[in-house]
């Protein structure tokens, strides 16, 4: 009975996301139209006269009323057409498909790095609350979240690339001398592995390290904090006491009993941090010339590139919904109670 219930719940959750998506579509449309500047003028290029601007306005459909424009946008959307970006001159959907894996790969690696550091730190702090270890953990992770990512990024580039020469040139996902691996998933690390090309894999990872560290530093604090908090709570709970009273080994108590329970809120945080990071890495992408959707969005926004901004936000929203679904699934896997108790 449980699995069917759970499936139904997951279905409901994804349906619940629909109003939010509709909201996103409307808000984005209005927001982009509120952006200053006239794309027709921008599109017309330098030295365009009033007539050619008017022509282009017509061509872009900007001479119609907002309602009409919205209708056209919806119709195109229904056909899976996100329009064409002005700033890169490519169909938005294609750009997103190309760039999304870059952003996701970066974010995932960053989160992985971050989780690998933050979760053990959080556990360590929780097992020694209010000691110097705890304070140190808090201090270190908080320091990480206290710097603007672009600043950390440039600083890392300066030290590890410019001064020390340890890191490769911050020129995107792969150094110029490498060829991107055969496209399967769009994740260079995975594609390189699939192709068995270890050298490209190494090069890809090398490019990833600095931006991922930059982002990872930023996400350390929420993860460590949540891990510590929920571990503390679980370690103080009755069932951990029962387990200890039953003589289970410290390792078993800490991991099988305490940590698995403490993981639940950590998963939620991880999901939130993921979507937050995906949105926030726009700045990091800019510093590292990372061809992700974040840098794409910034450029698009600055030049009032309606289609690109709309496409980007929509993609992010869908991703966000999908992510929540993944969290729900993860939650369901870890917690048998999902859907049974409120």
């Amino acid at each position, binding site marked *: 009975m449980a699995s069917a219930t759970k499936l139904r719940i997951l279905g409901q959750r994804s349906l619940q996301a629909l*109003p939010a998506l509709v909201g996103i579509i409307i808000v984005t449309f209005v*927001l982009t139209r509120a952006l200053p500047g006239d794309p027709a003028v921008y599109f017309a290029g330098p030295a365009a006269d009033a007539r050619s601007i008017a022509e282009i306005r017509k061509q872009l459909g900007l001479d119609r009323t907002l309602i009409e424009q919205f209708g056209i946008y919806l119709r195109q959307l229904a056909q899976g057409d996100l329009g064409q970006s002005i700033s890169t001159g490519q169909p938005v959907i294609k750009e997103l498909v190309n760039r999304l894996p870059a952003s996701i790969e970066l974010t995932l690696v960053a989160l992985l790095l971050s989780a690998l550091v933050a979760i053990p730190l959080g556990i360590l702090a929780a097992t020694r*609350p209010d000691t110097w270890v705890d304070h140190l953990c808090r201090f270190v992770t908080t320091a990480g*979240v206290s710097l*603007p990512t672009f600043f950390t990024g440039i600083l890392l580039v300066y030290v590890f690339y410019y001064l020390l020469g340890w890191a490769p040139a911050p020129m995107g996902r792969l150094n110029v001398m490498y060829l991107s691996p055969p496209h399967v998933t769009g994740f260079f690390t995975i594609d390189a592995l699939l192709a068995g090309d270890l050298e490209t894999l190494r090069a890809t990872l090398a490019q990833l390290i600095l931006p991922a560290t930059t982002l990872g530093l930023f996400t350390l604090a929420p993860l460590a904090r*949540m891990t510590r*908090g*929920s571990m503390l*709570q679980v370690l103080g709970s009755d069932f951990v006491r029962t387990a200890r009273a039953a003589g289970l080994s410290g390792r078993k108590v800490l991991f099988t009993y305490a940590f698995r329970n403490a993981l639940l809120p950590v998963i939620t945080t991880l999901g939130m941090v993921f979507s937050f990071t995906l*949105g926030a890495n726009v700045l990091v992408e800019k510093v590292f010339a990372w061809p992700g959707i974040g840098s794409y969005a910034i450029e698009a926004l600055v030049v009032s590139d309606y289609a690109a901004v709309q496409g980007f936000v929509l993609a992010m929203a869908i991703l966000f919904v999908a992510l929540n679904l993944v969290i729900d699934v993860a939650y369901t896997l870890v917690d048998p109670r999902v859907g049974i108790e409120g």
Partner: protein
Amino acid sequence: MQARKDGLAMPVAIQAEPVVPKRETGVSRWLRHVRHVLTSNPVTLLAFVLLTVILSAAILGPALVPYDPLQTNASQQMKPPSWAHWFGTDQLGRDVFSRVVVAARLDLIISVAAVALSFVFGSALGAVSGYFGGWCDKLVGRLCDTIMAFPLFVLAMGIVAALGNTVDNIIYATAIINLPFYVRMARAEVNVRRNAGFVQAARLSGNSDWRILALHIFPNALPPMMVQISLNMGWAILNAAGLSFIGLGVRPPTPEWGIMVAEGANYIVSGEWWLAVFPGLALMLAVFTFNLLGDGLRDIVDPQRRT
């Protein structure tokens, strides 16, 4: 997504007899409590000391600094830190130290105003939807979902780009993207308390729903929200800095940490590290302070932590 408190309940077995000294005035009792919170945790103490430093810079800064933060000086362009210019000078020969100190006020205003706005509106919406539930709850929930599904920084960028890059708009944008956090938190905190015994008791005492919400439930939801408030103050500053980095920050020549870091970041590679590093440190210190402040603030507002 539920909010969990990370506090640890007191060991079950030791409910030591509450010891309360004789009659005290509310203020002195509160001060004693504050002192206790501060001394019990070195990190919190540090945070409050830093906060004092930042606050005094914000209040007294313009009176204290050695130079006019806006005064350019052709002969003092890009000078490294020295006795005359502790933090060096920038491209236009302005004194970086003076600018960093004076910027404290604006940055504090941005973060406090943004957080205050999102706190007031967010917690009010959240409290109402958590208490009354029903269509109001649904509506507010959808609103939050919509905001949350946006990549938040990009939403802030969009708002500032659309409305124009003034301090006011930066504050509004920051407030809007922080809104859902308060809504959800207030909703959750109110929701768990809406049928608590003391709320029922308040109903029996003839309190109206609004009064119960405002005077009985809401104040009790405050302590956990304090943590969120202080975290968000830090975010607000970082957010403003990020906006500056892409050129949507406050207008020059107003000194602001974010814009100074953003502009200075371009000079790191060419060796003028002081342009970005000092405002960066100030910014980090402020964000750091706010982040560490949370637990302390929560303990101060929470009467249960009082002895």
